[in-house]
């Protein structure tokens, strides 16, 4: 055991105490710091990795300050520039995680040096409070962390906090040096102290894990956005597992993945659709001011290219240009064959770090438009593009549902599937039944469509379902569910809970119990001003 000679007396006194695991303070400290390092890396990466990535994806940055101001506006000042620079690390969630961890560990280490006034070990434990506070702050911000402030704000505050700590540490070091005071040494810890210290740390970690976790829907949504960008559709779908009450964006991203894997008719109703509010809540009296951050992508992957561009432009107007908006606007422009417009967005994007791959790929499309037909993502969108021009105002919002409820003509079979699914989601059974005419003669019909047809056949008793290849299992299950539901018509809440496990993924269950909660758009205020 290593001890400092000057603390010999104290050490010998301590030695007299009975110790179970005599532990030097430095070993305790290093163990704790290592533990904190590993814990922070895992915690930040697991809970915040994709959230940090999304923040980066919403912050345009280029190394030239004047160019950044030209693109993002004159509100870009030096702190925002610095914040956005460091935010770029988060393009790779692991890199962002390591950077945040490094800063948090530095904060802890320096705070410890500042607080080291006496031989107590409590100052060491107290030095973990600033980084823990940062993590709690992150969780308290919730959606606001990304959408209602400049995405670089977190990094500005993070680095500003670190700078303040460095400044304090510098001042105290000077004062100590001038005063000739040396850093007090800490005596070895007794078993009681070790246990107490360890207990405090463990409690802190449990509390941190409980309170500093992000909102589960926020985390799910950003992960889905991340995997959507990577086109990893199965992972997008997996993100909703275990969510008790998915929000609209989460449901929308899941539907995007289902559309892209042709599973909409099979798995649409696997998740509960009971949104707590029509708009997302940030805090007690604050709501998200817009929902373009997910409706743009939902419209895009539904083939509504102009509407996606519309939502992206509104989003860019409100939040400023970002890699997210510029990439998707480029895709819209390419699909609309607006080559010069696509070129403009690519020129702005290529000034960013990490966007070169995207710009090279899409610039190639401008020069050789025949390549577009070989891009599965663009082909999938193009397949769903409307064939008749009309106005957005002719449909209910959100348009990626409203348009498909009214669809009468489409480019592909996928358009029909989307239309059928939209009708079921909107509980527009009449419109659904009209569209089933196109399913006649098909050898296979998706599960949810079968369920709805079976339901119609059973309730009308006219043998409607016989015109379609309905699985006997589906018919049987629908009958059973109908009987079960009849028991709970007076207490739908109870019925919803009881039948969820067995029938939660059945259309009829959704029809009766899904989207039951509705409330006015509380607090939703926009600055829509008609014609600009």
């Amino acid at each position: 055991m290593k001890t400092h000679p000057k603390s010999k007396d104290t050490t010998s006194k301590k030695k007299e105490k009975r110790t179970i695991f005599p532990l030097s303070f430095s070993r305790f400290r290093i163990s704790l710091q290592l533990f904190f390092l590993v814990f922070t890396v895992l915690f930040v990466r697991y809970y915040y990795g994709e959230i940090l990535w999304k923040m980066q994806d919403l912050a345009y940055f280029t190394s030239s300050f004047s160019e950044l101001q030209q693109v993002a506006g004159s509100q870009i000042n030096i702190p925002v520039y610095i914040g956005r620079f460091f935010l770029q690390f988060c393009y790779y969630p692991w890199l962002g995680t390591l950077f945040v961890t490094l800063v948090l560990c530095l904060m802890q280490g320096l705070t410890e040096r500042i607080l080291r006034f006496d031989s107590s070990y409590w100052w060491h434990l107290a030095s973990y409070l600033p980084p823990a506070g940062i993590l709690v702050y992150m969780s308290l911000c919730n959606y606001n962390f990304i959408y209602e402030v400049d995405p670089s704000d977190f990094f500005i505050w993070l680095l500003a906090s670190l700078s303040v700590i460095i400044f304090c540490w510098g001042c105290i070091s000077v004062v100590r040096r001038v005063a000739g005071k040396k850093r007090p040494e800490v005596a070895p810890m007794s078993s009681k102290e070790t246990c107490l210290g360890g207990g405090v740390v463990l409690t802190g970690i449990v509390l941190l894990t409980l309170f500093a976790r992000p909102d589960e829907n926020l985390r799910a949504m950003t992960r889905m956005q991340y995997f959507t960008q990577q086109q990893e559709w199965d992972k997008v779908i997996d993100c909703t597992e275990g969510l008790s009450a998915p929000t609209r964006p989460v449901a929308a991203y899941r539907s995007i993945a289902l559309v892209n894997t042709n599973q909409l008719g099979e798995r649409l109703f696997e998740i509960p659709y009971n949104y707590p509010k029509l708009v997302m809540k940030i805090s007690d009296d604050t709501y998200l001011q817009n929902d373009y951050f997910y409706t743009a992508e939902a419209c895009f992957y539904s083939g509504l290219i102009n509407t996606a561009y519309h939502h992206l432009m509104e989003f860019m107007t409100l939040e400023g240009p970002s890699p997210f908006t510029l990439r998707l606007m480029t895709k819209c422009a390419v699909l609309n064959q607006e080559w010069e417009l696509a070129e403009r967005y690519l020129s702005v994007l290529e000034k960013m770090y990490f966007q070169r791959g995207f710009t090279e790929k899409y610039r190639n499309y401008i020069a050789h438009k025949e390549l577009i037909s070989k891009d599965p993502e663009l082909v999938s969108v193009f397949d769903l593009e409307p064939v008749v021009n009309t106005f957005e105002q002719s449909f209910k919002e959100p348009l990626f549902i409203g348009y498909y409820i009214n669809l009468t003509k489409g480019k592909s079979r996928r358009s029909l599937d989307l239309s059928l699914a939209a009708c079921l989601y909107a509980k527009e059974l009449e419109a659904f039944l009209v569209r089933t005419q196109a399913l006649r003669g098909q050898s296979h019909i998706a599960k949810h469509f079968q369920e709805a047809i079976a339901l119609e056949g059973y309730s009308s008793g006219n043998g409607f379902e016989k015109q379609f290849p309905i699985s006997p299992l589906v018919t049987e299950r629908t009958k059973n569910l109908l009987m079960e539901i009849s028991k709970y018509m007076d207490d739908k809440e109870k019925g919803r809970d009881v039948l969820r496990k067995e029938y939660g993924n059945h259309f009829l269950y959704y029809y009766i119990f899904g989207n039951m909660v509705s409330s006015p758009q509380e607090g939703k205020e926009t600055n829509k001003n008609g014609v600009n």
Partner: protein
Amino acid sequence: MKRILLYLTLLSGLCLSCKKEAVIPEKFTYKEQLPVIWPDYTLLTIPPNIAPMNFKVKTEAEAAIVQVTGGGKEIIVAGDDKNTIQFPATSWHSLLTASKGDAIKFTLFTKDKNGAWTRWQSYANYVAKEEIDPYLSYRLIEPGYELYRQLGIYQRNLGTFEETPIYENNRAYDIKDNHCINCHTYQNRKTGNMLFHVRQAHGGTVIVQGDKIKKVNLKTDSTISAGVYPAWHPMLNKVAFSVNKTGQSFHLIGQTKIEVLDEASDLIIYDVDKDEVTPICKTPDLFETFPTWNKAGDTLFYCVAKPKILLEGNDSIGWKRAIARYDSIYYDLMAMPYDMQTNTFGTPAVIFPASQIHKSITLPRVSPDGRYLLFTLGDFGQFHIWHKSSDLYVIDLLTKSIRPLSKANSPEVDSYHSWSSNGRWIVFSSRRDDGSYTRPYFTYFNEKGGETKPFILPVENPEEHILRLKSYNIPELTVEPVRITPGQFKDVIYNSEAKKVSLKQ
């Protein structure tokens, strides 16, 4: 001290050595082809007081050098590492001044990967004798749909690259302060009398008269809206406005994305001194809009539609009917005599019945000499800034002949325009670069009524036109800068209630 001077000399020497040397190559091969440069500043007529027309060489090259000669002067400039040519301001202005009424010749040399130089075919730009008004004001806003956030009206000194805000809205989002600003307009291109609208929070119309600023509410119980499109009378303290009930719809497919329609519109005249509004016309069956005065101030030009499709049948006028037949609404050009003594208007007469050829006319503006009327013609509707068919046309009010400004027009939108005070320059907004972001373009308009190839607003680094993701909206030339500071405007906008105007029938 000596050491510091030495260091400074070394440092400046180092900086100078970093800059590419601008020496005309002795050996080169000649290419009989115009170089590809952006912006396209070739074969133009340019004002003698315009800022350096910097450009980027688009031909692939390792280095570029340009030689400009005219009026016995010469400038030789080397491109930077991106082959951007930036002329030194003093030499540029000196060369232009010396070349007034004459041509200046541009000769470009480029170096390929092997170090061989090419001399491209020279081209000449003619320097007009007449200057352009030194200031251009415009609103910068995203080519958005319904929302706005940070926007402002700015003025640009056309002889330099200086851009200063006239007024900017709130930088930070706050529902209590969020406001849009639009429709800045001046009396006779002078800034002593000017106005612009503020919408939503702190709403009203901001009126400037000399150093006095006020905010008024132009909505009255018997007009359908507050004032919208303004036209300040050339002599009187009176402003004609259209009052419009406007909405917009968004196309689901195609490159035309927005359709703006009026459901109703009329004209009013506002007496700035008395804060009094008088309706000019209240005609539910006619949609009057875009008023503008002639030089003498005794005629009001405007556009009118007779939207039969909305009015026929038993249905009430409705938005749905309008958008269903949006492409069948046509506006004609009208003129109405005005008696300045009695503030009364005479019987309107049709000047150009565009509807008869299934076209629609908007934004009439009379030239300062009163002879020409410039307007925008499109296939239908009244918000041509979103119509690709939109082009500039001019009527000779003397001979009544009408013709397009073919040399200035493009396949994309060419729309909002204004004259310089000497009538020789026109600025207009155009989406020709990418179909989406409007940029100000200038064309020379000669005594015979002919125009020249237009050129985009010169900027210090041409890349600014790419990077600025905002549209230049309502470009207006002025002979002087706006003297009211943004702070003074803010004080009035934030701290005063809009004074309600009275109605005079």
